[in-house]
């Protein structure tokens, strides 16, 4: 409607400036509209994501009472603490092991689901995706109960095989095993869904052609399935790496970092240091250590996403 009105106004005036001005008005108006449409988004990201991100850089340079600038004092303090290096190690062990197992289980189960007839796939897929749908804080409580030191249902079952009782959350090795297990349980369905979608997008003709050429199962997998799925495998893995590395809920509820801080991740340790011990600068400092690995993963994801955009 607005377009028409403006042009009518322009008709009364001389021809050439009218054309130029209405064009400029149009452009001006379109970008103005676009600006207002994106303004809430820009404000939200600017005020509640970018600003806090830089603010935490500033916070990390203050002393505990936040009264004095200490430069890199917090960082050098962290480097001298043994717990910090343990957290770095545990975060890497946790993220890498969990992502590998999630990817493997997702890949294997996706093939099994893909194998069975189409009608039943829906039912199975629906069942296998349940762990991903339950809020992780809620399902981790169920795991906590399964791992309970005196009433553990796992230990009860294992006792029939003459195994156990296993101190699921009481010993460093088993506690690390348990948090990874719960994370794999929670995250594998995501991989399953992504890989299943990727499997379905591979044209049947490629497999038929491979069969005619005498390719065996392994060759079909290596030369057809994997190259076709490469992109999704890469993106899913990187995504999951970020989420797993920044995980909080599972470790917080299951072990709160124990025993003896050996299962702490960056997020849970930052919470303990920054909020529970109210040393905000040190907590900010701890969580900032997540940035390098997140940045590397993000760059790779972005490269992949852009590449796909260009192909399309």
């Amino acid at each position, binding site marked *: 409607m607005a377009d028409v009105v403006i042009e009518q106004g322009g008709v009364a005036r001389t021809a050439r400036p009218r054309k130029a001005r209405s064009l400029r008005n149009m452009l001006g108006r379109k970008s103005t509209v676009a600006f207002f449409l994106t303004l809430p988004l820009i404000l*939200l990201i600017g005020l509640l994501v970018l600003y806090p991100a830089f603010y935490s850089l500033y916070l990390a340079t203050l002393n505990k009472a936040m009264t004095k600038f200490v430069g890199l004092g917090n960082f050098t303090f962290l480097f001298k603490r043994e717990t910090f290096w343990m957290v770095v190690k545990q975060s890497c062990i946790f993220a890498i092991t969990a992502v590998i197992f999630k990817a493997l289980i997702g890949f294997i189960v996706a093939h099994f689901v893909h*194998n069975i007839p189409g009608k039943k796939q829906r039912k199975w897929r629906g069942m296998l995706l349940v762990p991903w749908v339950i809020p992780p*804080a809620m399902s981790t409580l169920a795991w906590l109960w*399964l791992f309970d030191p005196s009433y553990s249902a796992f230990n009860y079952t294992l006792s029939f095989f003459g195994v156990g009782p296993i101190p699921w959350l009481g010993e460093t090795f088993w506690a690390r095993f348990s948090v990874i297990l719960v994370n794999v349980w929670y995250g594998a369905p995501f991989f399953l869904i992504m890989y299943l979608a990727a499997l379905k997008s591979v044209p049947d003709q490629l497999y038929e052609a491979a069969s005619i050429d005498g390719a065996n199962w392994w060759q079909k997998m290596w030369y057809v399935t994997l190259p076709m799925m490469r992109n999704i495998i890469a993106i899913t893995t990187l995504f999951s790496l970020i989420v797993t590395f920044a995980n909080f809920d599972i470790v917080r509820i299951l072990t709160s970092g124990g025993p003896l801080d050996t299962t702490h991740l960056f997020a849970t340790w930052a919470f303990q240091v920054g909020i529970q011990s109210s040393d905000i600068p040190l907590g900010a400092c701890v969580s900032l250590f997540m940035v390098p690995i997140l940045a590397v993963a993000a760059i790779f994801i972005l490269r992949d996403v852009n590449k796909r955009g260009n192909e399309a």
Partner: protein
Amino acid sequence: MSTLVIDKAGPTRKLGSMSRDRAWALRWSYFFLVLFAIFFLTPPLYMIITSLKSSAEISAATNPWWVFHPTLSNYVELLTSNQFLRFFWNSAIISIVVVIVTMLISIPAAFALARMKFWGSATLATGVFLTYLIPDSLLFIPLFKMLAVIQDLTGITLLNRWYVLVFIYPTLTVPFCTWIMIGYFASIPKELDEAAIIDGASWLQTLLRIFIPVALPGLIAATIFAFTVSWAQFLYPLVFTTSVDQLVLPVGITTTLIKGDVFNWGQIMTGALLGAAPPLIIYAFLMDYYIAGLTAGATKG
């Protein structure tokens, strides 16, 4: 592994044995699927089993996988407890408001980014995607301090109030929803909105009459995503709220049902199950949209 061996021999044999191989591959697939389904469904099933037990039965340490005296007392107790209903109410109102806010922010933005090429639009779209990759565990400390500072400056109570979560949660939902909506909007043929513009529709009319109806599946997927994310969020409410009447469900269950060292497991499992129910119900009815949203995030754009 077994399917490996069987399929390998497939192409070289005769037709009859091939179909027999396929039948075996199918059987093995089912066998392993059952194993994985047991692994995936054990915790939720155990939640249900425990929620039906009385405290006495739990502490009697009978077979944990079986309910000998099923009772609904845990459910009755929780659903008549004002505290629990308060958690539920807080979670529900926050999630619903967050969904509305998210849609109001991300739909117009996605429309502008998908259709109006303006200065910096490509950068902004990339920026939105990058924001999606910034985890909550990186921002909770500066946000906590920010809220404290604003509270001191303005005198408005922000910490320990549930409504502050309504402002914080969109940082988790908006980037992803905008991102998948850009994908859905961009897939709408240009001829459609060009025709609308030629017919004299304004941008707003194009958005409301053309884009939203056509991209409705994407919209539903984004809504489901926003709801489940805000329902499940645990870190922010744990940091920003402490009073019992301000807590949301996940934090409420983990902090209040555990009294000292006494774990009332029957009630904890019932609470967790009730807390997991809304996302599960949505998932049961709208599974296809749910999965579309999940896969669109990484495959579109």
